[in-house]
């Protein structure tokens, strides 16, 4: 990590853009400019064929590059807007892929398609106002529930927890949530039950827990039977049989953030014994 920071410092000293390929899994800093390899040139990564990314390269470049969180396109340049590690995911068809910056933060910014846990703060007319931890509350139509019609309203009270998905999330507009998928099914979304505990963790931990190869969840699942909901906005709702178990689970999940795999295994084995 320190080494990577040193490299980043060197970049600022030299003030020249680095190739994205060269800094994969290294620390990048806001304001830094990155270069994407032009696949059409046919030269290997890190070769002379690297040029600043051109969005309107036309028919010549058919490589599809997706810039995820922490990266921003500014004209034909690619700028870093968050500090963290640069990640890349190769697509199935080859070329391009997804680039994003893995950063650690607590403040949530709504993103279209994210599944989040919100708290209903107000009922006004035919929409609910839902607090999701963003800069402004999201709106949720009462028709956006499974099986809801004009006559058949969902039973939602102020203070209830909602698990839903963003359909509109722009920086200039009020975000909008729904609790149904494109087929009109609930698909797990909707009002969360009245029991259980809600707590906040960092966004990085949520991503870590939701990663497909995450062992923590499987290990936790072996301890007690539990119900758990992760919101990408850093909220976790967990429910076990007893209050004691729920508290233990919540504290374990919170502590997981700064534990190595070995430390975690020790704690889980100790818990399993008791």
């Amino acid at each position, binding site marked *: 990590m320190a080494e990577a*920071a*040193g490299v980043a*410092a*060197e970049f*600022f*000293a030299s003030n020249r853009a680095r190739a994205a390929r060269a800094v994969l899994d290294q620390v990048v800093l806001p304001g830094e400019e990155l270069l994407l390899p032009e696949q059409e040139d046919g030269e290997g990564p890190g070769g002379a064929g690297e040029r600043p990314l051109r969005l309107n390269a036309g028919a010549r470049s058919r490589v599809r590059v997706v810039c995820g969180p922490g990266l921003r396109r500014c004209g034909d340049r690619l700028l870093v807007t968050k500090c963290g590690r640069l990640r890349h995911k190769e697509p199935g068809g080859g070329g391009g892929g997804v680039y994003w910056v893995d950063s650690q933060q607590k403040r949530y910014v709504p993103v279209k398609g994210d599944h989040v846990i919100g*708290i209903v*703060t107000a009922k006004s007319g035919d929409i609910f106002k839902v*607090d999701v*931890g963003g*800069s402004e509350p999201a709106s949720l139509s009462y028709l956006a529930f499974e099986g809801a019609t004009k006559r058949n309203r969902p039973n939602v*009270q102020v*203070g*209830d*927890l909602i698990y839903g998905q963003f359909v509109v999330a722009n920086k200039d507009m009020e975000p909008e949530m729904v609790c149904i998928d494109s087929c009109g099914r609930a698909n797990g979304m909707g009002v*969360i*039950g*009245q*029991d*259980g*505990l*809600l707590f906040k963790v960092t966004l990085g931990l949520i991503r870590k827990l939701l990663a497909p190869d995450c062992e923590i969840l499987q290990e936790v699942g072996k301890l007690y039977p539990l119900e758990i909901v992760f919101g990408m906005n850093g909220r976790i*709702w967990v429910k076990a049989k007893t*209050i*004691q178990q*729920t*508290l233990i689970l*919540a*504290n374990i999940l919170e502590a997981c953030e700064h534990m190595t795999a070995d430390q975690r295994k020790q704690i889980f084995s100790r818990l399993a014994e008791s």
Partner: protein
Amino acid sequence: MKETPLSNCERRFLLRAIEEKKRLDGRQTYDYRNIKITFGTDYGCCIVELGKTRVLGQVSCELVSPKLNRATEGILFFNLELSQMAAPAFEPGRQSDLLVKLNRLLERCLRNSKCIDTESLCVVAGEKVWQIRVDLHLLNHDGNIIDAASIAAIVALCHFRRPDVSVQGDEVTLYTPEERDPVPLSIHHMPICVSFAFFQQGTYLLVDPNEREERVMDGLLVIAMNKHREICTIQSSGGIMLLKDQVLRCSKIAGVKVMEITELIQKALENDQKVRKEGGKFGFAESIANQRITAFKMEKAPIDTSDVEEKAEEIISEAEPPSEVVSKPVLWTPGTAQIGEGIENSWGDLEDSEKEDDDEGGSDEAIILDSIKMDTGVGISNIGSQDAPIVLSDSEEEEMIILEPDKNPKKIRTQTISATQEKAPSKKSVKKRRKKRATN
């Protein structure tokens, strides 16, 4: 920004957990969170951490004229501020109800309990007294601000030293810390607030409620007490009915807690005193590194220094003693100077020293120094503004090379310079050329 609302399920869970005598952070009913006290560089500055709640206390003093009705008493002033940094729900520049309540409680706890001897703050009766100002800033909010603030205030006051003054006739002399050691305030006792949160109309009680527990509590009882078990202030808010024996039980618990906290404070103060005497770094000042650049570091180039000493000794032993001529700098016009006598010069032969440098490596700055001096020696007359060559070097070998006497004094300098430039590796030549341009 609005406060994050508390959901129904959190509220229900918390209340049920409290019924089962369980708390979110695994504490027992009467447990305090961890208290940590750190001090700043100056006297009268401290940070108190109560779990995740942090309060910064800073005491300052000023000579003012006293109040008319209390001519011989110093003035105490307390101010607690809830910054937006602590929690986004706090609005800046507005006196919220909570803030007013906390400020009044603090004043009652610290001023009205007469824990500080205000008469000792008098300098000249009716004319000059000390005004002691205690500023408290909430840095992070995780519940129970009042306890943390009261600890921070009393710790900062105990830690504070005011400048010494002397009165001779009509003359008042204020001594700087260098002239006379600053004097501590005279503190009679240390009142400390202990908060009790009540739930279910007083059925359950918790000591030191955190932020979420504060949100679901029905009522709050704050007892300020000193270690002699004297109650300084007691305040009940939230409108709950408390029974007599409940209050008595709370005061008993408060007595125990205050004892513990007072001990902790005294230990922290002693520790700080000890470290200060030893001259070490203390408190949160420790974490601030002075005059150190932590970012933008250049990596060190590996240099083989295994046989530098032998090499240096070799050079010294081979070298002839320096010429007897002691060169005096000659001033031609203001701003220019000449070292040596005309074209004569006693600096080392550059080509030779260059080779030796290459063996040693890493001392290229010395050559730059040489060549620049040479340059100035030659073109002394046509240099208008002669900037001193700013090449700072502190390694020992370099100096030795400079001391090397001239083996080939007949050589013309300009030639030598060009020769070295050709011979020198590219990196050096670039550097040198830049330097040359600067000097010319």
